[in-house]
């Protein structure tokens, strides 16, 4: 048992940590205070981790002999895990951020699952409620671990196609049922040892095996552009798992932090799903983006190619330009050149803004971060709901590597797969210029009517290369700068 002093030490540290997490997240609600917000939360973490070593004074007799070794192991694990992750987090390219966050998230889920495993193998839970909560946290944590790893593989390009076979959903349902059944079996078996057919450790291994398989099978069929939803879900899952294991360990800091993140992840998940006009279950359980089976309304007009230089000069003579960046910009690493081009336009007195669709990129808000990295001030970046009625008064809408999020079929064509999805009204601008690698379709697998519209010209090529040509063409004009 812990003495009074250690109880107070741990209790106070965890209380402080819970408060600092909430306060830190609260400070994240504005770009001005956000950097201090993460710092505040960091202090909370440091305090809680340091205080957790006070648990050493309260270990039971069974583990007393191991204590020096265990403390050493804990320090080594902290140093190794923390050091490697810190180093990778400092080095990773901003475009690779979604897969990095997926990895860190999977690690959290894995840690929650491992804690549950220690509790289960050591038979440490007391009573049925605690056992059920442990198992629940174990499943959610394990699903989050293996699912996040698959998400990482997809985002990193290791797996480059959604993996889909017939009867996949039935198979997933079976694995889920098996996991629940084994869980129930563990609960029954722990109350009545005679009811067990297999030895308890074997059953626990099976349980974790099924849970891990479930995470893999769930994530495999989901396509790349649905990743903002998937990452948010797994973030919420890990939060939930941590909260549940917090209850088992009787640690309110884990319960609060876990549940706050669980709720936050759920909110983000719903926001992302709403931005695609799809339900969360639709994203997770249906195979979106397969060859469009529905009839598509006839598209009038033709694709009109334009030279990059001409397009650049056209924008230089415009009064206002709104840029719609999409994932294609990130793929070609053209953010830096884009901002350079924007500065050239601004020097000529052109008013320039960026319009961001909520699901642009591979995780919520990824385009905002990429533009920020390139040096774009955030007051130039406008979100969809604030910018949509401005397109009609804008001379040029420049769409770069985005497709479905500017497809007017979402507003007009009821037979379209993306009908009802909120889109950026780029088509309402006086002139639309689209930088695109080729004539291919977007993620939804449907033709974009915007590209065929009267007021739209296509600039084909890699975004970065095209932008370089645009900059050269405008500079070549040798126009005087406008103050």
């Amino acid at each position, binding site marked *: 048992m812990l003495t009074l002093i250690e109880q107070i030490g741990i209790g106070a540290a965890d209380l402080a940590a819970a408060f600092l997490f*909430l306060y830190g997240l609260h400070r994240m609600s504005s770009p001005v205070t956000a950097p201090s917000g993460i710092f505040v939360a960091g202090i909370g973490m440091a305090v809680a981790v340091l205080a957790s070593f006070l648990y050493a004074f309260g270990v039971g007799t069974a583990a007393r002999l191991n204590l020096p070794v265990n403390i050493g192991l804990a320090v080594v694990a902290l140093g190794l895990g923390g050091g490697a992750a810190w180093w990778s987090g400092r080095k990773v390219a901003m475009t690779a951020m979604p897969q990095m966050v997926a990895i860190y998230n999977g690690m959290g889920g894995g840690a929650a699952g*491992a804690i549950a495993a220690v509790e289960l193998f050591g038979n440490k839970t007391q009573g049925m409620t605690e056992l059920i909560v442990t198992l629940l946290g174990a499943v959610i944590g394990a699903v989050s671990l293996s699912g996040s790893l698959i998400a990482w593989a997809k985002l990193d390009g290791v797996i480059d196609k959604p993996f889909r076979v017939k009867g996949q959903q039935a198979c997933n349902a079976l694995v889920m049922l098996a996991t629940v059944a084994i869980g129930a079996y563990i609960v029954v078996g722990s109350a009545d040892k005679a009811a067990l057919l297999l030895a308890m450790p074997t059953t626990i291994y099976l349980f974790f095996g099924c849970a891990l398989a479930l995470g893999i099978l769930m994530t495999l069929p989901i396509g790349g552009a649905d990743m903002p939803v998937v990452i948010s879900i797994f973030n919420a899952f890990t939060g939930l798992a941590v909260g549940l294991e917090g209850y088992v360990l009787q640690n309110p800091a884990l319960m609060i932090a876990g549940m706050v993140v669980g709720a936050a992840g759920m909110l*983000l998940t719903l926001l992302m799903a709403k931005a695609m006009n799809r339900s969360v279950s639709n994203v997770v359980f249906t195979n979106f983006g397969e060859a469009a089976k529905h009839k598509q309304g006839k598209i009038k007009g033709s694709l009109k190619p334009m030279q990059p230089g001409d397009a650049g000069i056209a924008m230089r003579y415009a009064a206002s330009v709104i840029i719609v960046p999409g994932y294609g910009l990130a793929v070609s690493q053209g953010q830096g050149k884009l901002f350079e081009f924007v500065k050239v336009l601004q020097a000529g007195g052109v008013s320039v803004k960026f319009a961001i669709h909520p699901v642009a990129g591979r995780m919520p808000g990824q385009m905002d971060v990429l533009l920020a990295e390139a040096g774009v001030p955030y007051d130039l970046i406008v979100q969809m709901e604030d910018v949509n009625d401005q397109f009609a008064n804008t001379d040029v809408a420049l769409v770069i590597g985005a497709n479905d999020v500017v497809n007017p079929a979402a507003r007009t064509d009821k037979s379209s797969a993306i009908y009802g999805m909120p889109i950026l009204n780029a088509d309402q601008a006086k002139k639309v210029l689209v930088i695109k690698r080729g004539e291919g379709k977007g993620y939804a697998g449907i033709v974009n009517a915007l590209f065929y519209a009267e007021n739209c010209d296509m600039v084909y090529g890699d975004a970065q290369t095209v932008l370089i040509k645009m900059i050269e063409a405008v500079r070549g004009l040798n126009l005087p700068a406008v103050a």
Partner: protein
Amino acid sequence: MDFQISISGFVALYIFMLAAFAGWVIIGHVPAILHTPLMSGSNFVHGIVVVGGIYALLNASTVQEQVIGFFAVLLGAGNAAGGYAVTDRMLAMFKTSDHPATHTGHGKAARVKSIHAKKQ
């Protein structure tokens, strides 16, 4: 006085309910432009699981428990440290037009104003 923490049944549900509500409200106020750092920041927050890992490892009495506990701490520490590193890096990138290269108090009022204007 007894400082032994004991949370059971409904008390746990109250804690979960209040925490979930707090999370929902706090995150609901974060503008879409910060959604990526927010996600990695909340990712960092659930790195607190490392504390549970340390508890499990310190109380490990068998080799099996030691091995699993070691991984719990390793993974939890990775979650926390990595989440912090990337969030901190990303947040340092957000700048305004008036004072592009600084994070000092200059022009803070103007920045705050422009954000509030955007919210409305």
